[in-house]
């Protein structure tokens, strides 16, 4: 192909994505997000492609979130009472979407200027029902934000691209994903029956024979929980949500190639690695009176370090990555407590988490 024809092909692709964006509605569920929603809306308005409609679902906020959104020229919907979950709030707007594509984005998430354009490119394949992008914490100050930064670097540069190459990303992340509207509606929208509506929806797409894509070049920047109070709520919701989805869909998951392996491995680690961290390691250290056993918590530190350094992509961020790695091990150990609790409550005690608590 000559350089002229390459330029022509690129221009044609770009104009066809612009056409797709003209068929895009963005839904932003929001509850008391006055501090962050303006940045989210502005980042949508600054995209390289023009989005047809932005709908903010002001879920009965008490801080004037709806007024802020309205002042920026987007549509604001306010249900008569609080819907109780992000999924239900998104469904309020979905019923009014008449474009070919729907995007869901959290009210505390901003996008890179070309994120929508890059994400929509995945929909050239008619079998693709959903596409999600790369997630990177916007602020990396506290130990929790830094831990999450490393966790996401690992997940979005190593695990998720591999899942995508095998055709089965585990989750189309709820904070930034786009969907084919008719497929989304045909699948019943976002389900409120689990605490992780994004897992539920992603897996239902697979069961219905559709594809889900991860687009690493489409970048989003959410605000992550900055203290333990909010992190606790988020980890509890995510852990219970994952286990609830396994409990709900396990028969179907068994018949989806590759997904069954990733889910089985994730569940094993959630249960057994957590037992290892929280019970076996301390027990061995006490029984043998040898603190060296505690090194098990950081035994994989060289592997984590090499991966995140390769993923950091530039000298400017190496220092930040190195300073954040210890926080990752703190977050992982805390995470294991919530995973184990979720496995115990949901699978053993059959006591599901019913109340959706907003993480931040």
């Amino acid at each position: 192909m000559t350089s002229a024809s390459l330029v022509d092909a690129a221009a044609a692709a770009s104009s066809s994505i612009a056409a797709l964006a003209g068929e895009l509605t963005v839904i932003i569920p929001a509850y008391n997000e006055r501090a962050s929603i303006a940045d989210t809306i502005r980042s949508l308005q600054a995209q390289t492609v023009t989005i047809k409609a932005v709908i903010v679902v002001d879920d009965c906020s008490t801080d004037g979130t709806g007024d802020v959104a309205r002042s920026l020229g987007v549509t604001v919907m306010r249900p008569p009472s609080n819907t109780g979950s992000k999924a239900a709030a998104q469904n309020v707007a979905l019923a009014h979407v008449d474009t070919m594509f729907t995007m869901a984005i959290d009210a505390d998430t901003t996008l890179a200027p070309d994120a929508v354009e890059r994400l929509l490119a995945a929909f050239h394949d008619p079998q693709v029902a959903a596409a999600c992008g790369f997630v990177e914490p916007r602020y990396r100050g506290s130990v929790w934000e830094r831990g999450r930064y490393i966790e996401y670097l690992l997940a979005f540069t190593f695990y998720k691209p591999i899942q995508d190459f095998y055709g089965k990303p585990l989750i189309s992340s709820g904070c930034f994903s786009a969907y084919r509207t008719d497929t989304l509606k045909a699948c019943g929208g976002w389900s409120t029956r689990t605490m992780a509506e994004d897992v539920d929806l992603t897996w239902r797409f697979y069961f219905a024979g559709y594809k889900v894509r991860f687009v690493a070049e489409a970048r989003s920047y959410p605000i992550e929980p900055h203290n333990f109070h909010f992190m606790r709520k988020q980890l509890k919701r995510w852990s219970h949500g994952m286990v609830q989805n396994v409990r709900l869909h396990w028969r179907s998951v068994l018949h989806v190639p590759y997904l069954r392996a990733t889910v089985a491995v994730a569940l094993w680690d959630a249960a057994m690695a957590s037992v290892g961290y929280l019970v076996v390691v301390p027990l061995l250290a006490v029984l043998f009176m040898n603190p060296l056993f505690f090194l098990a918590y950081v035994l994989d530190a060289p592997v984590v370090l090499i991966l995140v350094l390769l993923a950091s992509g530039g000298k400017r961020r190496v220092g930040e990555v190195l300073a954040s790695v210890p926080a990752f091990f703190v977050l992982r150990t805390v995470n294991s407590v919530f995973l184990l609790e979720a496995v115990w409550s949901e699978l053993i005690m059959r006591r599901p988490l019913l109340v959706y608590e907003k993480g931040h």
Partner: protein
Amino acid sequence: MTAGLPGTGIGGLFYLLAALCLPLRFAWLRARGQRDHRHRVFVIRQLAMSMSMLAAVWLTGALWGFWRPLPKVLTVAPIVVTFGTLAAILIAVEIGRLIIRPPPQLRARGPQAQVRPPIPSGDAAGPPGLEDRLFDVGAEDGT
């Protein structure tokens, strides 16, 4: 959201092996006519990361052995146990797939398959309140 414990034993090994098998997947995709040069770049990059991880594991073992030499059984046992556990999990899943029949909606797979009833358009699709939400975990797959 992310799920599980990134970097942890069995999951880490699973993705490492999945990365090492990427060339096979790449060859399979090419054989099916999917020739995308970005696939080649991706496979090379992920393989480089996997090799770096293996080098890091080897270096950790070597440094540990230099600092506190371990009996051979203690160096081999974790490898055998980890690979054995992963193999057992994957085999168990495959056996489960053979024994347990897929639910009806999966058997009728295709664009027509609807896992849940479609939501109505317009104002009729008002949000259910938390108090009257049907929390039906376990209902779909009969657990």
